[in-house]
């Protein structure tokens, strides 16, 4: 089993989801008797990669690969895949990977099993995906031939990464014929009255379960009584009920308060990555099977409209 893992760079550093994918690649190699080659388009990254336990580090350098442009990255990977013939190409399921790995699958005409949460060795190498917004899992296998797999944030723990000393090998890519039909501009952050949720000790976070805009007030009152900040999952922000700087999750803020009190949030991975580091997670949800209970320290199966008003009055009375 020849595994090629693509390592994404973020401002000269190894992207954290890519590093987890490297760990996953090492684990697959260990269980299948395979080898791992780690690929980057950046020489700062390849020198960092050389310190890990991989068979070799591949470096493809070209001015067109300095910043992410899917069409150039695709052609580079296409050339490398043809030259190296890996059995598996591994990605971390970052937003950047979302913007080129599926197209690579179509270009190479091999399947992509995306956003996996792990793998296991049964009769065949089996990949585990989280489906229906975290409510169920599925086991997938590839019938034949090479394939691509991407792993979700948190799929592997990088503290177990084995170190080593690998050679760096330069590989050539030919980007001369790549179309300029996609041209990215500068990255930016929206200038708005940013609420800094990262400093809050207490966060009361509301999800779609809050039902309608008028009900936000109840949660705001609870957050005030607890001396905390109000935050939300994406649908609440999408609906315009709270400003976007209060969104917690992969496209919002990452928080780690002493208390994260979640009201009517189901626990999709994109929310969980933003709050799983909280010291104490308390979840109130009427669905006992809501995935967020899985990471809760304390759980209440119940209706927020029955519990929250009582909770406010008990706190105020104490």
């Amino acid at each position, binding site marked *: 089993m020849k595994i090629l893992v693509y390592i994404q760079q973020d401002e000269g550093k190894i992207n954290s989801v890519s590093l987890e994918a490297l760990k996953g690649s090492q684990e697959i190699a260990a269980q299948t008797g395979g080898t791992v080659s780690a690929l980057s388009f950046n020489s700062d990254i390849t020198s960092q990669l050389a310190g890990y336990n991989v068979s070799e580090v591949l470096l493809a350098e070209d001015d067109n690969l300095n910043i992410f442009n*899917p069409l150039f990255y695709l052609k580079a990977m296409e050339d490398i895949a043809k030259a190296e013939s890996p059995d598996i190409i591994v990605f971390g399921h970052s937003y950047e990977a979302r913007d080129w790995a599926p197209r690579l699958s179509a270009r190479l005409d091999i399947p*992509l099993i995306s956003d996996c949460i792990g793998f296991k060795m049964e009769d065949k190498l089996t990949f585990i995906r989280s489906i229906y917004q975290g409510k*169920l899992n599925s086991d997938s296998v590839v019938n034949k031939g090479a394939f691509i797999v991407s792993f979700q944030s948190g799929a592997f723990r990088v503290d177990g990464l084995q170190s080593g000393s690998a050679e760096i090998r330069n590989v050539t890519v030919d980007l001369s014929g790549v179309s300029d039909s996609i041209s990215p501009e500068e990255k930016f952050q929206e200038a708005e009255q940013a609420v800094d949720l990262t400093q809050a000790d207490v966060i009361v976070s509301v999800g779609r379960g809050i039902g309608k805009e008028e009900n936000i007030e109840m949660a705001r009152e609870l957050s005030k009584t607890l001396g905390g900040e109000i935050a939300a999952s994406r649908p609440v922000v999408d609906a315009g009920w709270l400003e976007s700087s209060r969104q917690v999750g992969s496209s919002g803020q990452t928080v780690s308060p002493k208390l994260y009190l979640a009201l009517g949030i189901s626990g999709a991975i994109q929310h969980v990555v933003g709050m799983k580091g909280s010291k104490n997670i308390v979840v109130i949800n009427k669905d006992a099977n809501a995935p967020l209970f899985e990471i809760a320290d304390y759980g209440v199966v119940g209706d927020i409209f029955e519990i929250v008003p009582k909770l406010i009055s008990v706190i105020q009375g104490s």
Partner: protein
Amino acid sequence: MKICVLIKQVPDKDSSLTIADDHLTLVENNITWVSNESDNYALEEALLLKEKHGGEVIACTLGKDSARQVLKDALAKGADRGIFISDSSFDNLDVLSLGKVIASTLEKENFDIIMSGLQSDDQGNSQLGLILAELLNMSHGSLVMGTEIIDDSTIRVKKELEGGWFQWTKLSLPASISIQSGINSPRYATLKGIMMVKKKTVDDVTASDISSDALESNVTINKIYVPDKTKETQFIEGSPEEISEKLVELFKNDIKVLN
């Protein structure tokens, strides 16, 4: 602009999901079916572009018989025409093969823009928009939170990056654009819109219309199951009053966020 919007029918988020005895499918009678959330935003964005720049919006779905409903809903909201791709031989195809089926259906239409939601709330592969871009030789943008037509051959899209960052990107048309939720406020169908549905056409496409010879799936799902619980969550029970008392004790004595 000739715009195609891809819409998938998925279980409503509040449906309780029961796995059938085959360990592969869901028991369907307790499921409420709806249009996938981000696809609703994609449809709205397409309708807004049409209102501003003229053109045509065609809604397309691939699914079981019941999925005709998502096309009716899209037509009621203002889409001009529908394409319904359905055949039992598509049931177990992987997403790349489904991409081939859809690409071979859409190819002859020469769309300027294909819009899709970035991820379906059922399988969540997040791949189709980009697969179509490759198969139909289009530019692409994913996680899109804003669009702006520059001229007949260019659209500018605002892409969402991680952690609150964004990036505008220029795409040459034709382009396949995957829309992120929150980009706009999807409209509801009006009574007049619902009345209009009967006058609009839906073209049916089955396996016999598909020119693609690669209709074999290379990925097999062996089973679906409820994830194992790994964490010991301490559950607090009782009446709302009792629960509130216990939570306050917890906030005071254990978590120490109240005096």
